[in-house]
């Protein structure tokens, strides 16, 4: 690190978070940069574009106060993150500095924060159930180790409560599995920070967690680095120490805004809604760091949380995320208004890897059939609600009325649960069978006869 490098005082232009330096010796792409301001303070940055004529540097802490006389040093290496097992239970800033007043971390290793792509050949199939204790996830959109399953939320919805509940309750099966949570906050408010920290401390969840906090008033550019620091830590815990790591990232929307800001400062050709054309790849570089590796014990499971601007699921941020992640948990404002927590809209939610993680020996043999049936019946009931609004309940057939009642029952018994209610998968499935008794037998078209005989409670 303590390499002697030249200092340049040749900044020619400053724009947004970028500085342009000329007359340098050859500088490596993505090399780290240190900038000393006239008042003696230091800023860090990274090379975005390097040519013989000019080098473009992005400053992580912004360019406020930087002038043309600032001096620039190129550090000759890419950004590294010091990692150690002692990071568990600690809180770091968005730039990776400890902010909990504890001792500095003695690194066991320094890792490149960009990471590297897992060789698809080396990946192991995610197939182990993670129990979150939330029925709509475990029962209907099961999370498995190595999956990335985002929560699509929106302003004013309780996604943070759900994130905390998952962080607290999540468990893996298997006796000697070590479980850890890496919590990455990007652009959260000071109030949110206090809630998170208070909850982590109150429930003792901090003990098994590493927390990174980039606050709303921290420089936007730092937000681009924060998740990379967190994921590098997660990779170390998972693939070098063999832990089962759950990474919660909130709020991805703030991350994408930061990307757009930097892209605009670089005067790049914008893609949809001004977001850069490479946002898909950029998000993939984060999300694809989830996974399992053959012959390796650990795993990284991700729950990124994003708020959909204007509740619009087709907005580029949820849209591109949905194309990369393996499903999504969508929150519903309607359910929230009806006082249902967690307000998970199961119809538009999905877990692509669910089938691999459920069934005999994992959850229970009837799991798939039951959840398919719940989906179908709930969809039918929801359709009828629209109809009832027009023609009234009286003009429904007997069969339709049962579906209508089922939808209400489903929201009340399966979706609704307490903030501290930790439901096991068996409890969830039993509630499901209980409400299925409200339908006629011959409407249970998705379930094999043998499960009906075995599990359907006799009325």
């Amino acid at each position, binding site marked *: 690190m303590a390499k002697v490098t030249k200092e340049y005082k040749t900044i020619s232009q400053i724009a947004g978070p970028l500085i342009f330096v000329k007359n340098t010796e*050859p*500088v490596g*792409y*993505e090399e780290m940069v240190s900038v000393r301001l006239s008042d003696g303070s230091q800023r860090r940055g990274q090379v*975005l*574009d*390097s*040519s*013989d004529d000019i080098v473009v540097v992005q400053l992580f802490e912004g360019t406020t106060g930087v002038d043309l006389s600032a001096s620039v040093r190129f550090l000759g*290496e*890419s950004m590294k993150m010091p990692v150690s097992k002692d990071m568990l239970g600690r809180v770091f800033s968005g730039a990776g500095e400890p902010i909990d007043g504890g001792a500095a971390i003695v690194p066991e290793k320094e890792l490149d924060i*960009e*990471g*590297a*792509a*897992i*060789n*698809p*050949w*080396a990946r192991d*199939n*995610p197939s182990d159930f993670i129990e979150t204790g939330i029925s709509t996830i475990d029962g209907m959109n099961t999370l498995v180790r*190595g*999956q990335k399953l985002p929560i699509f939320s929106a302003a004013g919805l309780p996604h943070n409560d759900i994130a905390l509940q998952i962080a607290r309750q999540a468990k893996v099966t298997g006796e000697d599995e070590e479980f850890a949570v890496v919590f990455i906050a990007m652009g959260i408010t000071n109030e949110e920070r206090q809630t998170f920290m208070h909850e982590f401390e109150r429930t003792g969840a901090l003990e098994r967690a590493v927390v990174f906090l980039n606050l709303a008033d921290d420089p936007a550019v730092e937000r681009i680095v924060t998740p990379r620091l967190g994921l590098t830590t997660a990779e170390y815990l998972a693939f070098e120490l063999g832990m089962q790591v759950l990474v919660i990232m909130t709020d991805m929307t703030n991350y994408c805004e930061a990307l757009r800001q930097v892209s605009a400062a670089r005067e790049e*050709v*914008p*893609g949809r809604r001004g977001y*850069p*054309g*490479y946002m*898909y*790849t950029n998000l*993939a*570089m984060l999300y*694809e760091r989830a*996974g399992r590796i053959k012959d390796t014990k650990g795993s990284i499971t991700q729950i990124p949380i994003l708020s959909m601007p204007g509740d619009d699921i*087709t907005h580029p941020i949820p*849209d591109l995320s*949905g*194309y990369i992640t*393996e*499903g*999504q948990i969508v929150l519903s404002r309607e359910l929230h208004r009806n006082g249902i927590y967690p307000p998970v809209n199961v*119809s*538009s939610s*999905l877990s692509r*890897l669910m089938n691999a993680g459920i069934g005999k020996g994992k959850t229970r043999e009837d799991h*798939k059939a039951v959840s*398919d049936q719940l989906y*179908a019946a709930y*969809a*039918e009931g929801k359709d009828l609600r629209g*109809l009832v609004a*027009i023609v009234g309940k009286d*003009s*429904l*057939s007997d069969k*339709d009325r049962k579906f209508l009642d089922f939808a209400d029952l489903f929201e009340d018994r399966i979706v609704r649960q307490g903030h501290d209610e930790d439901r096991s998968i068996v409890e969830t499935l039993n509630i499901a069978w209980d409400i299925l008794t409200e339908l006629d037998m*011959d409407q249970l*078209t998705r379930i094999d006869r043998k499960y009906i005989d075995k599990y359907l409670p006799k009325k």
Partner: protein
Amino acid sequence: MTAEQGVIYRVAGPVVTAIGISPRMYDVVHVGNEQLMGEVIKIVGDKTIIQVYEETSGIKPGEPVTNTGEPLVVELGPGLLTSVYDGIQRPLPVLRDMMGDFIFRGATAPGLDREADWEFVPVAKVGDEIFAGQVLGTVQEGPMEHKIMVPPSIAKGKIEKIADNGTYKVDDVIAVINGVDITMIQKWPVRNARPVAEKLFPDVPLITGLRVLDTMFPIAKGGAAAIPGAFGTGKTVTQQSLAKFSNADIVVYIGCGERGNEMTEVLTEFPELSDPRTGESLMKRTVLIANTSNMPVAAREASIYTGMTIAEYFRDMGYDVALMADSTSRWAEAMREISSRLEEMPGEEGYPAYLAGRLSEFYERACRARTFDGSEGSVTVIGAVSPAGGDLSEPVTQNTLRIVRVFWALDTSLRERRHFPTINWLTSYTMYGNELGKWFTANVHDDFVDNRVWAMKILQRESELQEIVQMVGSDSLPEEQKMTLEVARMIREIFLQQNAYHDIDCFCPLERQYVMLSLIRKYSDLADKAIANGVAVDRIAYLPVRTRFNQAKYEANIDDELVAVAKDMEQQFKELGV
């Protein structure tokens, strides 16, 4: 051509500018001290702009650049099947052995294993007059007979030497033609289509085992289909089902900018599943190209061409090849990303103006053809499209639809009610209906096409009636219209819905598809008679046989079960007085 040396002038992401070389467009160059592979994509005066297939972090101006003077090629020959490659045909298992679980840059490995032994059996003999594409001999590769052909570079000639029966490695000389040594490896530039003797009209269906596709919207061997759908609608599941069960001889599956875990799924599942026709492991007929979304974007751009060239090579042996490209949108985005780095004038939504041209060039490589050897082969292309926001008016979908003749539209609202596959029967279409209709009539049943027309009519009628029901409720409909809704429901639930994960239901042979739809039609006919006799729809709709019919497709003895359903049906309608 001698290698030419230059230096790097500028590095910005995957795009590197070099000076001091004068290459041709799309020549392969090696960049930097680590000699990373790249391709020339633009030449401006003395500056050469290169897309690099690997991460460029740490690369500096002033580092060396070498021009190979050759375009990007793939290696074709024995050993392709069961292989798993990245976008530029580097075998991923070999990379793992070299570098461990993560992909770091700078590694190279040949596409074909140089150490593997192959049993070569000559077909041609010394003195034969031969021409490009003709078979020199064969090699047994798993269940497939891999034909060693005269490379296209030798138009005509006389065999001066040919190897005897025996074990050879891919780079051993197996023949000498016109004084040129021929090995089992052919190299072909990926961006050029391989030639064929004659393109034929596609009039034989690719059987997929999916009822909604085979019966309702069939595709021809050598045709091209697009599967657009918002995320979560099951593009990948459909692609994988096709890769598993379609009656192609060879499957080339390109995971282009998609999820790593999906590749893993293919890699875990395929070796365990067996080809319904040969009984051999599915992996043995598959070539997998995995360039996931976090792997270098330039290699993603190349992956589509790499896969297509491999598919064409097998077509030239006279095989039917199915090429799955998942997803062409990621490929288009890779083009957009590189185009924007080049600061080109953007077209619609930031995509380069040449997007439409590239897409049509790619889809036009699908064809059924007579090979130079006189046999018939085909490449059927099934391209997934991931429209931004699920909006089909976006440029990639629109430009694709102008070329392909089959459109399988995936629908989010079907997914929400767990109707799988989520192929919307009202918006999807096939333009091979007439040509393939003849085949179905001749090979399955006279009524096959008639049944399809009948079912489509019911489904269309249902959608009209649904609008009325939305306004006034189903109770106010006349009895026969209520029955139409019930029959449509049967078509949807029994016939169109199919469980890709169910042992029995995942694959439905054509004959059974015909029987199932005929049974629903019979039910409908009997119901019409019953209604004419004054029986209430509620009684008809709740006949016990319906439950049995619903369940039948999941039973191990499904065909017997369908016979039993037919019998029950007649009996129960008889009790209603029909």
